[in-house]
């Protein structure tokens, strides 16, 4: 049974369907790419899947549980964690504190234990600290450990965003254009990082505009246009698909 099953997912804004009767699935351990021209509805799909938007219709089933229209924090707790297209970070915290703060799910103690800093809560925080250091090291941000997130160069900010999502220990990681705004060198490092995350056993659904990276990383690609799925298959199949080429190049133009 697939880990993630999306069926009939639909979202209307006024009279316009941003996402229209979308069906797809993701199997455990896969890295699936979600691509499509601008405005195809990819980020909307993420928002719908993770409770940031309410679907007009449709179902999202994760590990056999129906998570449609649940609150974002609940969905995160069941194991789906998403990143954001804009550089969304805890801007006043430094890099390490961002990750520590994001380890929230791992640090839950009772209110009184936290307030009175009992030994139980202190022990948990020690675990959280070592986990955060480990994640920070894994993504390669040790050098900027104390820098306020606000002051990081753009590429580092995107990496921190990924580290933050890892802190929540996702089983399904939704990456929303992680490579946006990166130069070639940064993008290559990020691709290597994403592959390492995947190799550790995390199932990944990846939105990316960077075609090379998407084709390189993903075993399977889903193509959206105007809220509908227009193609699905291996990178080679999708690359050769006429409809996909049309969608990206617009009408009346053929690339040689």
């Amino acid at each position, binding site marked *: 049974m697939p880990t993630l099953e999306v069926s009939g997912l639909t979202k209307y804004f006024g009279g316009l369907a941003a996402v229209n009767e979308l069906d797809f699935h993701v199997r455990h351990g896969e890295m699936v790419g979600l691509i499509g021209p601008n405005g195809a509805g990819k980020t909307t799909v993420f928002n719908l899947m993770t409770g940031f938007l309410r679907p007009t219709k449709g179902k999202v089933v994760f590990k056999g549980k129906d998570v449609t229209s649940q609150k974002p924090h609940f969905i995160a707790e069941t194991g789906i964690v998403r990143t954001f297209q804009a550089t969304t970070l805890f801007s006043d915290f430094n890099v390490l504190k961002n990750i*520590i703060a994001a380890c929230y799910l791992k640090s839950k103690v009772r209110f009184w234990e936290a307030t009175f800093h009992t030994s139980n*809560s202190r022990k948990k925080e020690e675990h959280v600290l070592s986990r955060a250091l480990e994640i920070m090291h894994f993504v390669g941000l040790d050098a900027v450990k104390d820098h306020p997130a606000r002051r990081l160069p753009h590429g580092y900010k995107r990496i921190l965003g990924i580290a933050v*999502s890892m802190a929540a220990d996702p089983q399904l990681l939704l990456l929303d254009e992680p490579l946006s705004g990166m130069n070639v060198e940064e993008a290559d490092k990020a691709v290597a990082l994403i592959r390492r995350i995947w190799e550790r056993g995390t199932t990944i659904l990846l939105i990316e505009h960077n075609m090379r990276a998407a084709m390189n990383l993903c075993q399977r690609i889903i193509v959206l246009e105007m809220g509908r799925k227009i193609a699905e298959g291996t990178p080679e199949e999708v690359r050769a698909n006429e409809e996909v080429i049309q969608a990206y190049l617009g009408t009346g133009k053929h690339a040689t």
Partner: protein
Amino acid sequence: MNKRKLIKPLSYSVLIVALLLVPLLITQPYVLHILIMMAVNIGLASSLRFIATSGQFSLGHAGMVSIGAYTSALLVMKLGLSFWLAFPLSGLTAMCIAFLVGYPFVRLKGIYFTMVTLFFTEVIKLTAEQWRSLTGGVAGIIAIPRPNAIIIPGLLNANFASKADFYYLALMMVVFTLLILYAIESSRIGMTFLSIQQSEPLAESVGVNSSGFRVLAFSIGCFFAGLDGAFYCHYLSAIAPASFGFLLSINVFIYTVVGGMRRFSGPIMGAIILTLIPELARGVKEYEPFVFAGILLLVIFFLRGGVVSLPEKLSKIIKRRVAYA
């Protein structure tokens, strides 16, 4: 290394001892009154800032103070409870009401949340004016009894006939308030509040129930506001709806902003300074609001971080001058 670690607790201990000795050295009731009001204002400003650490500006404190005050007065006068029972119950009442209205209120973001808390204050005030049978209407409640005397034979005889007894009560109340607020703020809970303030969507995406935490911050802050209200009513012995209008909410907001929202010590400084200024400006009482306004404008144009950020700002300016020298 060991010496450094001792400085902080040592200086706090000295401070506490000094504060405890004050009524023995200063006996003018008027000065004690100022110190008592300062303590109350510190509690109000700190609890308001506490709510703000989760990213919400509340102008509802006046309403919560009012609830605490009326609850305590009614529990003591109509139900015959001891002040020592009514006092915590008033805080809890304010907290429960904050919890109840909190859930719908926190669905609003930004200035809308602030507005709805302002409306809440106004509704409480109008209700107090309207419900004459319960609250005495516009005239309010008078002859509220002093806190029940604490008598430990040979050791303590606090009958609250003098300001000194109220001073100690206020001191204990504000120390309790600050200890709890600081403990929560420096814990994982405080960190979670701050994460919500900086980016609610990001916090949600890593599993934080942001609405729940915002209600928690709001309820705890309002608990201490209610407590202050209960203290007010037994200290002043008379309350009326007019004392709890949105002017009070705005004053508390001003203490917090002027002192500095970013640091725990900010509202403490703000409350101390702005409680003192009306006293120093006794001669020109009519122009006191001008002074307040002037301070607000100074802060907003030149010192956004508030008074507590002054040392930092000065050192930055000095460093810049030195660099270019």
